[in-house]
C-alpha cells in the first residue's frame, strides 16, 4: 500500500539537528525521499566582521566558529597569518600548540560520542562523554581561564607557558581517559541495537566521498588515509609518531570507531609532546601592531571535524582585506542527502550525528 508523500520540516528547532539547522525532508511514511538542508539560522556575518578588525582581534572570534573545538580554529587562523607575515614560531610554542590542539580534539570527539549516542537513544553515554570532557576543560580553565571559547593560541605562539603543575595535571587526565573510554565502548561497541542502528547506515564509497569534498573522520571511515597532519605537516606534527585510524565500510559505525581510535592516537601525541617539550620561548617576538604587505595565503589543518582552512589576504594595513574560512562541517554536510536517500527517518538523525557538524562553522 502506497502512502502519500509528506513534507516534514526538521528544525530549525529540533532536538537532534545539533543547533539551528533546518532539514526539509520529503518522506513516504518513514522512508526518506529527499533531504534539503536549509542553512543560515546562525549566520552571524563573521567574515564581514573580520574585515573591520585587526589581525589579533580576529582570533577570539574564531573561537566561536566551531565552538566544540575552539583551539583548532585559533591554530588554523594563526598559522595562516604567521605564514602571511613570515613569523617564525619557536619550537616550544609549536609543541604547546600541538598539546592544546590534540586535547581539543579529545574534547571534541568525546562530546561527539555523547551527542551521537544520545541521538540514537543511549542517553547515559552523553553523560559519560561529557564527564570525560569536563576533565579536559579543567585543563583549559587552568591554562587560561576559559572553558569553551578558550582563545589559547595567539598569533606568534600561545598565551601562556606550560608550567610543571599543569603538565602533571595533563598527564593525570590522560591516564583517566582510556578507562572512561572503555566504559563507553563496553556499552556500545558490541551492543546489538547500536550495531543495527549504525552498521551499513549512511554508506559512502571512497570515490564519492572525495567527490563530495568529505574530509576528516567520515572520509577516513571510507579507508582514505587523508590526514593533513601527515599530508602537509604543520606545527611540528612531523616530530610525532602516530597512526591515522582508518575504517573500511564508510558507514556510521566506522566513523564511530575511527573517532574513538583517534582519541587514543591523540593521547599518544600529547604524551610524546609532553615528554619532548623543548626549552625556549612560548611565543615569538611580535611587533606591537601587525601590518602585513599585500599578499594572500591559504593554510589548512586537520581539525577534529575535518580539514579546516583559512584564506587570508592582506592589504598593507593592520586589518585583513579578506579572511575566508573553509569549514569542514559546511562541506561535509553537503553529502547528507546522498547518504540519507532511501533510508528511514530515524537514520537521518544517526547519519547527521555521525557527520559531527557544528552550526557555528557552517553558518559562520
Amino acid at each position, binding site marked *: 500500500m502506497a502512502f502519500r508523500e509528506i513534507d516534514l520540516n526538521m528544525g530549525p528547532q529540533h532536538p537532534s539537528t545539533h543547533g539551528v539547522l533546518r532539514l526539509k525532508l520529503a518522506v513516504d511514511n518513514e522512508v526518506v525521499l529527499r533531504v534539503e538542508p536549509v*542553512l*543560515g539560522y546562525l*549566520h552571524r*556575518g563573521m*567574515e*564581514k*566582521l573580520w574585515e*573591520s578588525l585587526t589581525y589579533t582581534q580576529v582570533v577570539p572570534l574564531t573561537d566561536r566558529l566551531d565552538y566544540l573545538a575552539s583551539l583548532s580554529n585559533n591554530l588554523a587562523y594563526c598559522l595562516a597569518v604567521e605564514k602571511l607575515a613570515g613569523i617564525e614560531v619557536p619550537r616550544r610554542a609549536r609543541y604547546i600548540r600541538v598539546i592544546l590542539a590534540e586535547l581539543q580534539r579529545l574534547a571534541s570527539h568525546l562530546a561527539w560520542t555523547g551527542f551521537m549516542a544520545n541521538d540514537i537513544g543511549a542517553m547515559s553515554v552523553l553523560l559519560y562523554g561529557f564527564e570525560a570532557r569536563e576533565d579536559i576543560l579543567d585543563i583549559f580553565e587552568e591554562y587560561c581561564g576559559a572553558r569553551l571559547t578558550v582563545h589559547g593560541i595567539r598569533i606568534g605562539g600561545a598565551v601562556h607557558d606550560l608550567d610543571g603543575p599543569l603538565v602533571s595535571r595533563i598527564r593525570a587526565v590522560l591516564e583517566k581517559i582510556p578507562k572512561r573510554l572503555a566504559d563507553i565502548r563496553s556499552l556500545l561497541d558490541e551492543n546489538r541495537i547500536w550495531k543495527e542502528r549504525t552498521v551499513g547506515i549512511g554508506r559512502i564509497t571512497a570515490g564519492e566521498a*572525495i*567527490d*563530495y*569534498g568529505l574530509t576528516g573522520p567520515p572520509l577516513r571511515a571510507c579507508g*582514505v588515509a*587523508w590526514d593533513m597532519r601527515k*599530508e*602537509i605537516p604543520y606545527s611540528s606534527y612531523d616530530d610525532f609518531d602516530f597512526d591515522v585510524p582508518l575504517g573500511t565500510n564508510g558507514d556510521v559505525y566506522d566513523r564511530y570507531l575511527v573517532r574513538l581510535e583517534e582519541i587514543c592516537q591523540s593521547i599518544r601525541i600529547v604524551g610524546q609532546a609532553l615528554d619532548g617539550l623543548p626549552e625556549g620561548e612560548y611565543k615569538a617576538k611580535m611587533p606591537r601592531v601587525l601590518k602585513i604587505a*599585500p599578499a594572500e595565503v*591559504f593554510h*589548512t589543518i586537520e581539525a577534529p571535524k575535518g*580539514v579546516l*582552512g583559512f*584564506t587570508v*589576504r592582506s*592589504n598593507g594595513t593592520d586589518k585583513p*582585506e*579578506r579572511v*575566508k574560512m*573553509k569549514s569542514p562541517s*559546511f*562541506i561535509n554536510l*553537503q553529502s547528507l542527502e546522498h547518504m540519507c536517500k532511501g533510508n528511514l527517518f530515524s537514520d537521518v538523525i544517526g547519519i547527521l550525528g555521525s557527520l559531527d557538524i557544528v552550526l557555528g562553522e557552517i*553558518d*559562520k
Partner: protein
Amino acid sequence: MPADRADHPELRKALDALTGRFGNAVLAGAADKGELAVRLTKDVIVPALSFFKDELGFNAFEDLVVFDNLNSPDEGGARFTVVYRLFQFPGAARARLAVEVGEGESLPSAVPIYRAADWAEREAFDMFGVPFEGHPNLRRIYLPDDFEGHPLRKDFPLAGRTVGL
C-alpha cells in the same frame, strides 16, 4: 607562460601541460611550495577544471573564494576575483585557479565537474552576487530570500542597510 620558480617537478610539468592545452587563456602561472597557481580567462574555467580533475589528478575541490577588488584593484582590474582551490590526494599538491569577473557578469558553474562546489557557489552568490550559470539550485544559502544586497561586498555596511527588528 613561464613560471618563476619550481620546486615540484610534477607541478612544473602540469603547468606546462596546462599552458600547452589552453595557450593564451593562461594569463599567469607559477608552481611554488607544492602549490600550482594559475590565472585564467573566465571562458576556459570549466574545461580547465575538468583538465585538472581528469588529467592532472586534482580530485578534491577544497574551496571557492571570492575577493572584492573595490578598494585594492587587482591586476585585471575587474570587480571580483574568484579563486578555486583544488587538492590532489594522494600527492598533497594544491592548485589555485583564479579568474576575474566584472560586476553583473556570470561564471559557468563547476558543479558538473566537482559536486563539492555546489554550496560553495551558492555561498559566493549569496555573499557577493556572483551568479553561476548552470548551477542546479542557485539560491541564497545563508540569508533570507528577501534580503537586499550582498553583504561581503566592500560597499555593504557592516551593520546592514536596513535596521533589523
